[in-house]
């Protein structure tokens, strides 16, 4: 099935795995308890238009090439939990070709990332790590 943009396509690839808890851009707080959901989980942050900034397509000559970075942030109570989610997500995304309506996508490439880090700005402190994925496409 085809998705409307690269971020939606990444979300579709991740939510296909029932063992990964995925959130799109924000983590919902339970209105009754005011608590965040149980960890571990991954939060997906995509570009504002879902596909990313348009850059020059040297073959076609117009600014049709979408050059987007989708970020996945893994949050857990332990470094091991973060690593398990990260490994699973990497298996789901790396080199996969997302299906985006009206566009020809290139395989998803790993762009950069941040190792497991403790976040002391939240209570209780949690651990998190980050991967950035390059999602590029041209008009179909």
């Amino acid at each position, binding site marked *: 099935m085809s998705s409307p943009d690269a971020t939606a396509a990444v979300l579709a690839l991740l939510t296909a795995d029932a063992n990964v808890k995925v959130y799109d*851009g924000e983590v919902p707080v339970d209105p009754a308890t005011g608590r965040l959901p149980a960890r571990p989980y991954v939060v997906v942050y995509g570009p504002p238009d879902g596909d990313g900034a348009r850059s020059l397509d040297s073959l076609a000559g117009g600014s049709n090439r979408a*050059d987007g970075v989708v*970020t996945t942030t893994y*949050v857990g109570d332990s470094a091991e939990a973060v690593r398990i989610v990260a490994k699973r997500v990497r298996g789901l995304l790396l080199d996969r070709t997302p299906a985006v309506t009206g566009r020809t996508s290139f395989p998803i490439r790993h762009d950069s990332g*941040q190792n497991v880090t403790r*976040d002391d700005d*939240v209570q209780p402190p949690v651990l998190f790590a980050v991967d*950035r994925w390059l999602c590029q496409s041209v008009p179909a």
Partner: protein
Amino acid sequence: MSSEMDVSELRKLEVDLGAGAVAALEDVRKVVQVGALKIKRGMQSDATGHRHAAAFPSSITYDTKIGATYVEAEIGPDKGRTQGALGNLLYFGSSKNGPVIDLTRPLREEAPIVADFAAQAAARALL
């Protein structure tokens, strides 16, 4: 039975290629330095305009190194400079927030140009 081969010309070629490789590295370093400067400026530009990180762009620096077989450039915020330590937060976010700035946009834009000029510099030095 034995056979002999005159490899003196091959030795001369080996020396010539070795000298060419050294010259190529110096030329490639110049290309990488220009590329690194442009990437640094791109990163500074992308990092400009954030109210709580006004000094952060000035923390972004670059350095190039040359080895026996490689040239490398390191570009990014210097944690020893004012607000340089904000780099992790701005480029990768936190457990609760996403990133604010695209870390590799200037690199993605400049890398193909650097690779093209570096290949031309290497070819000139070896031919």
